[in-house]
């Protein structure tokens, strides 16, 4: 314990060195803006700015990239709330309640909630990181394909309640997302699948962002245009010191949610291959399932913003753990960070903690500091972000369309994906008008590849024996939890009906 305190102290001192402090500041700011652009997320920011870091010492470099990672995580919420377009898969769940809040003129409250929840999530997880890094690394090693698949089942179980009230249409939407996830090259058999019209571009598959920006950017905008007859009037928000203080006083409402979401996010984030997206979805799903008023979710419940934001920030810290201790990335962003570390001549792995304590503890120290810097920057910038909403629709609409195009192109470098985005957006709009829920498809395309791959890996490994999922303790636990989560809403319904029946006889 004393050891950790000494090392952490040294790490914090290192984070406060002028160069490192500057790196934190610039990284957070750059990340915030990159994350706030629809389409661009932490992956792009880190990948694009990686070469810049060859000019500074490794510790400063990783601090810069980690700060950028954080900033982008916060920034993702900004685009989800103000524009209704998730900047990255990690911010999808933030749209569910963030967008309605903005439409009700509570954008500043939603942004404050996102910032505070992210801060709490980041801080709780960095504390957990400091205390439990080595034992958690050992646990992560136990996570094979079976456990990954069980975790995916658990993730699907947590957001079973996210769909609309039309059951066949919800099922269709989930399945459509899962099938779209299978387009492209199958790594298990090495065969191309569903390459429509022999477009070689489809061999890469349909990216999550292409679908999400198509549906939330293009489709949602068309839908808004139609329903408001062009009179898009979102209550203009004036952000003042007074409203800021009032927003902060709401923190108590979502504090328990945030704390739970943080712990969950950190834990899921540490598991290799899972990352922040399932973490934020699970956090949202669980919060909704166990809330006193599940029906208010999706209509602007502030807990629905806090829960996923706490979890995704916590998970981004968590995903650093397998990267540093095992040299395997827990998210696409850490995959690039890992590449960076190797280039700087640092070899992530079990020995890094003992070989280069200056580096590891400098990074951990900077995580504490970066959390403070981002929350401060973010809160300070809220008045600027909410001004976006005050723009007339004849300016905001074309700008959003342009950003959708440039954003998609910038992430994949192909016009093919831009056209695909347009097509999917139109399809999403037409379906949404007939009450087909779109969120399940977006979630399914993120989790689909992981679920299919881990399922098939497990079965190859067990030579076709399905019992393999129930013979391993961690996987069995996840499966049982998933079962409980699926039964719980039904049980709740039955109980409510019974309660209704008894009160009726009185």
């Amino acid at each position, binding site marked *: 314990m004393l050891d950790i305190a000494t090392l952490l102290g040294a790490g914090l001192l290192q984070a406060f060195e002028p160069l490192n402090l500057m790196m934190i500041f610039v990284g957070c700011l750059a990340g915030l803006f990159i994350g706030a652009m629809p389409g661009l997320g932490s992956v792009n920011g880190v*990948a694009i700015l990686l070469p810049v870091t060859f000019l500074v010492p490794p510790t400063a470099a990783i601090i810069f990239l980690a700060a950028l990672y954080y900033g982008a995580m916060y920034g993702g919420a900004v685009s989800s709330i103000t524009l209704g377009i998730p900047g990255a898969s990690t911010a999808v769940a933030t749209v569910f309640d963030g967008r309605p809040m903005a439409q009700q003129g509570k954008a500043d409250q939603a942004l404050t909630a996102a910032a505070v929840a992210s801060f709490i999530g980041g801080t709780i997880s960095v504390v957990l990181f400091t205390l439990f890094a080595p034992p958690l690394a050992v646990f992560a090693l136990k996570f*094979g394909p079976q456990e990954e698949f069980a975790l995916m089942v658990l993730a699907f179980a947590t957001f079973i309640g996210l769909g609309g009230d039309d059951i066949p249409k919800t099922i269709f939407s989930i399945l459509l997302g899962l099938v779209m996830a299978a387009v492209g090259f199958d790594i298990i058999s*090495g065969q*191309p699948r569903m390459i429509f019209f022999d477009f070689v571009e489809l061999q*890469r598959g349909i990216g999550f962002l292409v679908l999400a920006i198509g549906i939330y950017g293009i489709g949602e905008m068309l839908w808004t245009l139609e329903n408001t007859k062009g009179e898009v009037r979102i209550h203009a928000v004036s952000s003042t010191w007074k409203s800021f203080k009032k927003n902060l006083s709401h923190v108590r409402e979502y504090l328990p949610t945030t704390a739970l979401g943080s712990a969950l996010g950190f834990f899921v984030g540490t598991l290799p291959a899972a990352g922040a997206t399932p973490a934020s979805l699970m956090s949202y799903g669980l919060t909704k399932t166990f809330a006193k008023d599940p029906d208010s979710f999706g209509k602007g419940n502030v807990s629905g913003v806090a829960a996923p934001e706490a979890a995704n920030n916590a998970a981004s810290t968590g995903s650093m753990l397998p990267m540093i201790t095992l040299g395997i990335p827990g998210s696409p962003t850490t*995959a690039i960070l890992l590449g960076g570390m190797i280039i700087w001549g640092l070899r992530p792995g079990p020995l890094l903690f003992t070989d280069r304590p200056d580096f590891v503890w400098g990074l951990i120290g900077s995580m504490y500091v970066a959390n403070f810097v981002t929350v401060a920057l973010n809160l300070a910038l809220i008045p600027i972000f909410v001004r976006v909403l005050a723009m007339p629709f004849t300016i905001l609409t074309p700008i959003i369309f342009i950003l959708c195009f440039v954003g998609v192109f910038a992430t994949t470098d192909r016009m093919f994906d831009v056209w695909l985005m347009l097509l999917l957006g139109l399809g999403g709009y037409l379906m949404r008008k007939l009450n087909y829920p779109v969120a399940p498809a977006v979630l399914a395309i993120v989790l689909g590849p992981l679920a299919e791959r881990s399922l098939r890996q497990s079965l190859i*490994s067990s030579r076709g024996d399905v019992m393999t999922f129930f013979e391993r303790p961690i996987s069995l636990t996840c499966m049982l939890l998933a079962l409980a989560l699926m039964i719980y809403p039904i049980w709740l319904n039955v109980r409510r009906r019974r309660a209704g029946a008894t009160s009726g006889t009185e």
Partner: protein
Amino acid sequence: MKYLKTLLASALALAVSAPVAMAEWQPRKPVEFIIMAGTGGGADQIARLLQGLIEQKGLSSRPFIPINKPGGSGAEALRYMQDKAGDDHTVMMTLNSFYTTPIIQEDLGVDVTQFTPIGLMAMDTFLLWVHTDREDITDLDSYVAAVKGAGLDWKVGGTGSGQEDSVLTAMMEAAFDYEVTYIPFPGGGTVAKNLIGKQIDSTVNNPSEQLAFYEAGDSKPLVQFTGERMAAFPDVPTARELGVDIEYYMQRSVNGPPGMSAEAVEFYTDLFQTLFDSAEWQEFCVSDGLTCDGMLKGGDLASFHASQVEAHKKLIAQVGAGAITGE
């Protein structure tokens, strides 16, 4: 209208001044640095390192922009390069799927011997790894005995059917007359982790993927599939020494699209030669267990590619495309 006029005028000016500029060719726009694999893998790391060095040393008047085109084991990247024929502002970082993908996917319509060879930056090597806890396995013979004993319960991890390590696994199955269960994972790092977590029994990882675990004493190499023992692993025998005729490398070369102009080829070859000779690159080679003695370029690299294509054709015919693509 005025804007258009300016544009046309400037286009004209460029056309007129072009012959003068050709004396010493420099890129006029950012260079697309295509990577035929996803972010975070070996090829990606190398490309991003090279890009950083180009920027740091100011070797190019325009930046190199790394672009990942991982679709279909590199099929997407190969097709893209083929369609860019004659373009002077695109180069590609390749690995062995450069050879195998056009053979397996015949209808792709790509002939890599038509591509413009620029420079062979490094050769990556393969070793056979098992967990240190497998005390019963100390050398190749005990390994083969253990695999034969386990039969299809022996699980080998790799980066995907049709990838280099699946070719090598198929070669081993043919050489030792056993059959294993091959489980694909996304990326060599994940394979390495699954070996340490004992989800799989053995792998044929590159040194860079296992080095951290090896140094921590979690995994041990049994055989190296090189011509001679590498400096980093002096005590590990090569397959040849043990009388097994398997030698397999992963090439990491830079190539341009077909029909690149001679001036551009000269520029890129010089640029990558400078990078190859730099202390940073040579250090990276040593720390990552890459073999980098002398950069192959021009005609030498072209004939290297031609011989590799032939060798891979033979290999795939020998082990059967089915053994590599699975199912």
